[in-house]
């Protein structure tokens, strides 16, 4: 993990801030280190687990974890956003090995993830799990709520992770979980890797939400 911290510094050029400045880092590490059945060797296997970074903003932690796990050379991290770099300020699946979807415009990952779950099931890949990571502000986008309602109504086994750093302008009075009726819900400390693993590991026979709370943005 120290290696990941170094990679983060390398990609951001920022030595002052601790890795905890990156709200998604611990969730991403737990997913790629302990949960997802995916590796550079199986990045194209049809039955691989799927991880979709719906919240495409601030992908430094995502890139650092993918590099640490060997999906692409660490040297790529030095050229973020440059003309010939595969790494942009939002991830592009066409350019980056291991990236399942190109995102950036908020509110697209959950719909794509629902389609993936359905496509995998139709082809008999019942062991494959699909995870979608969103931000709490991303939930402002209405398209999410089409996917949330449909997944609940059809008992679709998809796992959504919402990183809650209270960045939504108008907030979610009553809590984020209340926006996911019909989903299994757990709320965990987004910095506690063991608890994150406990929340992420079990399979569910209906949609599953994990709210990972981290310090408020800017705090």
């Amino acid at each position, binding site marked *: 993990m120290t290696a990941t911290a170094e990679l983060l510094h390398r990609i951001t050029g920022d030595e002052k801030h601790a890795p905890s400045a990156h709200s998604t880092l611990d969730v991403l590490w737990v997913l790629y280190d302990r949960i997802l059945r995916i590796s550079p060797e199986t990045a194209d296997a*049809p039955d691989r687990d799927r991880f979709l970074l719906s919240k495409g903003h601030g992908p430094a932690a995502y890139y650092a974890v993918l590099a640490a796990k060997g999906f692409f050379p660490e040297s790529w991290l030095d050229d973020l956003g440059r003309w010939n770099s595969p790494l942009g300020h939002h991830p*592009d*699946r*066409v350019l980056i090995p291991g990236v*399942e*979807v*190109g995102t950036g*415009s908020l509110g*697209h990952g*959950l*719909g*794509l*993830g*629902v*389609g*993936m*779950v*359905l*496509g*995998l*099931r*139709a*082809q008999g*890949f019942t062991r494959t799990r699909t995870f979608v990571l969103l931000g709490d502000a991303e939930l402002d986008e*209405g*398209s999410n709520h*089409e*996917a949330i*309602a*449909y997944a609940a*109504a059809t008992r679709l086994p998809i796992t959504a992770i919402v990183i809650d750093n209270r960045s939504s302008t108008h907030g979610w009075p009553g809590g984020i979980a209340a926006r996911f009726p019909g989903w299994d819900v757990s709320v965990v400390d987004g910095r506690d890797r063991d608890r994150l693993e406990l929340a992420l590991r079990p399979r569910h026979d209906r949609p599953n939400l994990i709210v990972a709370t981290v310090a408020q943005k800017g705090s």
Partner: protein
Amino acid sequence: MMRDTFVATTTDLLDEDPRTALVLADISADSFRSARDRHPDRVLNVGIREALMAGVAGGLALTGLRPFLHSYAPFAVDRAYEQLKLDLGHQDAGAVVVTIGGSYDASEEGYTHQSPGDVALLDTLEGWTVHVPGHRDEVPAMLREAARHDDRVYVRLSEQENDRAYPGGGRLRVLRRGGPLVVAVGPMLDPVLEATSGLDVTVAYTNMPRPFDAEGLRALTESDVVLVEPYLAGTSAAAVSAALEGRPHRVTHLGVGRHEVRNYGGWRDHARAHGLDAAGLRASIGQFLAL
């Protein structure tokens, strides 16, 4: 009706090809009930959620299936435009979008259910093949061809049909030889033939306006071109201009006007209001060609 042909052919494809999937947003769900009973994993109705319909199609495609999606054009294209752009195009994924209700077919429903701009919107995106069948018997081959690859395909079904089908390819098909060229797209053929009856013009037909048959247009153009399409007038202006670049030509583009017609009635009434019935076309074509 074209829609029935779409239902029958797509139902057959679902039976024949395990790669075929269908995503609906309530529209036409009843017509696919038997297909859904046989293939519940591949016939999916997401409810009245067109953004999700397109997103799901993108997800299905990324797992290797070949998704068809279907609704009224204003919902499948206008409303879900960003999903078509990002969940398909940006992902380098494809799907077959089959719509009804283009232009003014939903005449009694009003402008909320109409999309004269669907093809123009798709023209802003990369890699869409656009089919505009002029007859129901032209539809099955389009769908079967689209099921065999992974590209982005749009099939625009309409109430208005020509008397006979002209199956086959994306080339301009010459139906009448004479003077200046009149190109009719899809269901515009019969009114164009009637409007130009007795006039010394060449009439060519296409039911696949994208990619546009630039080579065919160059071969048939001497100077004057009239392009008649059943959606927003001038939608093909850029394609025609590109095809004829560097060659002296005069061109007029006839199609659906930009102004909203706040009347109901039938599609024939709206065709008349936009000058796309035979009489209106004869007036416009005659004036442009001074015939």
